[in-house]
């Protein structure tokens, strides 16, 4: 593909990196958000790839990511 998407559909972060390109050249790329790690293929439907079409119920904020619970919790170190 020619250029990477400019923002994450899920959290609106603007650092998107390239993870993979299609074995048949130029068909699709797999890209990833540098903050929420959301990963998508560039030819997926708009509801998964475009911020304006992405469902509100799945959107994340920086706060959501920072405050997400740890599963499982990191245990205390044994002394």
């Amino acid at each position, binding site marked *: 593909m020619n250029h990477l998407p400019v923002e994450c559909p899920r959290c609106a972060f603007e650092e998107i990196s390239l993870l993979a390109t299609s074995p048949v050249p130029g068909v699709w790329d*797999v890209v990833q958000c540098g903050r929420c790690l959301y*990963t998508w293929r560039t030819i997926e439907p708009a509801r998964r790839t475009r911020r304006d079409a992405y469902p509100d119920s*799945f959107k994340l904020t920086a706060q959501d990511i920072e405050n997400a619970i740890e599963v499982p919790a990191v245990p205390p170190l044994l002394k």
Partner: protein
Amino acid sequence: MAYDDLRSFLDTLEKEGQLLRITDEVLPEPDIAAAANATGRIGENAPALHFDNVKGFTDARIAMNVHGSWANHALALGLPKNTPVKEQVEEFARRWDAFPVAPERREDAPWRENTQEGEDVDLFSVLPLFRLNDGDGGFYLDKAAVVSRDPEDPDDFGKQNVGTYRIQVIGTDRLAFQPVPMHDVAQHLRKAEEKGEDLPIAITLGNDPVMAIVAGMPMAYDQSEYEMAGALRGAPAPIATAPLTGFDVPWGSEVVIEGVIESRKRQIEGPFGEFTGHYSGGRRMPVIRVDRVSYRTNPVFESLYLGMPWTECDYLVGPNTCVPLLKQLRAEFPEVQAVNAMYTHGLMVIISTAKRYGGFAKAVGMRAMTTPHGLGYVAQVILVDEDVDPFNLPQVMWAMSAKVNPKDDVVVIPNLSVLELAPAAQPAGISSKMIIDATTPVAPDVRGNFSTPAKDLPETAEWAARLQRLIAARG
């Protein structure tokens, strides 16, 4: 008939009319997941799906819904494809008694054909990865058998765990990993993290059909899944030594991924459409660094769709959840006749039991909640009489409607443990749990007017078997 790898099972599914090859070009998203989703909506004997013409890929081979019907589940166990569900569960329980069957070690594993190591690892170049549900955080490995060892007892073969856990691909050589705290690998990870050590791990994809069943089975901590696979197959399970970790892995896997869970690290993962029919929330979860990938030439990438039940995952873990609960309950309560724990991994369980004395059925229900699996799952139990088939939902509804006096027969116990993914839990990991006693009260619990039940005619069971034989012979 025991299958040593996925490919030989796919051949059998095809011969039995239970594999559909989709040769038209499809989109990786949303077509593959939507097709697999649709298998759960077209009847109980849906076929497995095989895709080999996926847009943008050159060599993709993707198998979906391999266990996703009662016919396929029966064939996985080497039974005729029209075997009724109750008989599949009973046969499963009968074979369990052969446990343990020692595995057979082989050196010529086909996944030794190709290797990526270190900086050359690129999961996207080996696997035709794709997304399932609209709100998923990314691409997942959701049908792997994950092998780990107890860091405090690494040479104990029984404590070596083989389990299915969800794994998000978050980089070319990085994975996010969900160990539910009730599961064995979480115990392994806790022991490693308490010492500040990484936990080595092997992830095997595209396994023989019984390996997938035992990896999703709630067995005891020190029971070997390989020894159970041997019992269920009726032949030793073929295993091989993974080259990096030295772990025991299935001989017949398509792909073996090895690496470590990095100690004391958590990173955002998910959400993911889950077996509960709801999305998990995004959570900070452990991460895996992949150090080595071994794979068959042109590997078949096996995955499953999961979302609102029923989906493949419900067929895959239905009988294998019933049988451990049946065995554990019967060990102390031989009055237990049958256990149907097929609803969302046993979050709801139906148990038929004879009664020793008044109040006995409720005790059986409480015991179900305190079995190892019940601690994290069994949130609702329905008890029915010994002559009610818990797999026959109309009979169960009849018992509920005719036998239950809500004031006396519904018991709610607050604040018990449940897995975090249970959507109704509040807070996550805590739930009230309910027993519905739909059995007939017996002395000294003398309630209701149950003295004249209508029973099946004495000749009915014989006629049912005769009719089934006649229908089967008709083809």
